[in-house]
């Protein structure tokens, strides 16, 4: 028997209502090393398939405690045995405590910025070209376009930071993930600052009508939970 693990949380004594998780399994609270974890029993060894229902169930369970505490969400599909889970918690106890302290009292806001500007075609002749020349011109356009996107992404990220940085306790910013989406930022915001943050962001958006914004939240701090990735980042190995 394995456990499906939703999140780790602190200072939750009991669940106030019956919660159903993946495959409608009842969610229960277990305690390991002073941490509480929301889990449900899970049959089989392979993680559950990625379906709309399962993904929403995972997030819904994590959100059940969000109003009372800030959880550290596990990634979808975490199905260790209880022994493996206990070993993980015991081994990483200090890192988990530090991580909980980082996110305590905060939620995550997500800001994605999309640019529709397409400068790659401007200034280029579309005369009849040999296939080889057309190919090389296309590659050159792509390269120049990519460089412009990277520069634009840097500028937009810096602008975003200048607008809302005072409210951001921690951030995770990806620049230029694709041609259209130039900035994807996750902001860790103190709960009491959410209204101010939203207000400032709304004002800032008005000044950049050429950009599209996708703003969502509050989320449990999914982007600020993983201690393994930080280890990899810091030491270059996982």
């Amino acid at each position, binding site marked *: 028997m394995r456990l499906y693990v939703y999140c780790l949380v602190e200072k939750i004594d009991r669940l106030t209502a019956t919660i*159903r998780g993946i495959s409608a399994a009842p969610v229960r609270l277990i305690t390991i090393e002073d941490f509480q974890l929301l889990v449900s029993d899970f049959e089989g060894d*392979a993680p559950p398939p*990625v379906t709309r229902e399962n993904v929403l169930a995972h997030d819904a369970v994590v959100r059940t405690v969000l109003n009372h505490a800030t959880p550290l969400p596990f990634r979808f599909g*975490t199905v260790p045995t209880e022994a493996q889970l206990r070993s993980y918690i015991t081994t990483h106890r200090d890192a988990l405590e530090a991580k909980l302290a980082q996110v305590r009292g905060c939620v995550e806001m997500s800001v994605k910025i999309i640019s529709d500007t397409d400068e790659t075609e401007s200034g280029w002749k579309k005369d009849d070209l040999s296939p080889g020349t057309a190919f090389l011109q296309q590659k050159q356009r792509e390269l120049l376009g990519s460089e412009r996107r990277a520069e634009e992404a840097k500028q937009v990220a810096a602008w975003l930071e200048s607008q809302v940085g005072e409210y951001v306790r921690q951030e995770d910013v990806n620049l230029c993930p694709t041609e*259209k989406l130039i900035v994807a930022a996750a902001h860790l915001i103190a709960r009491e600052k959410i209204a101010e943050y939203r207000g400032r962001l709304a004002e800032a958006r008005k000044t950049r009508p050429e950009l599209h914004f996708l703003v969502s939240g509050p989320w449990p701090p999914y982007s600020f939970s993983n201690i393994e990735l930080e280890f990899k980042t810091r030491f270059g190995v996982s």
Partner: protein
Amino acid sequence: MSSPFDQVLIQSDVEQLEQADLSLLETLDHVLNRGLVIAGEITISVADIDLIFLGLNVLLSSVETANEVIKKRG
């Protein structure tokens, strides 16, 4: 199951996508790409995918791509 999106505020200038689709894409991004990982424990099956998941890792990709996938789904 109650919708988790009651608590999710979406503000979008991109009108091609329904709010529910955007909410789902955002949930996918958070739930599948982020969160605590127990090393060696994550092997997500992509079988029986019924929605936008082919665009999952490109979810952050572009609204354009997402929109195409959603149209195909619909």
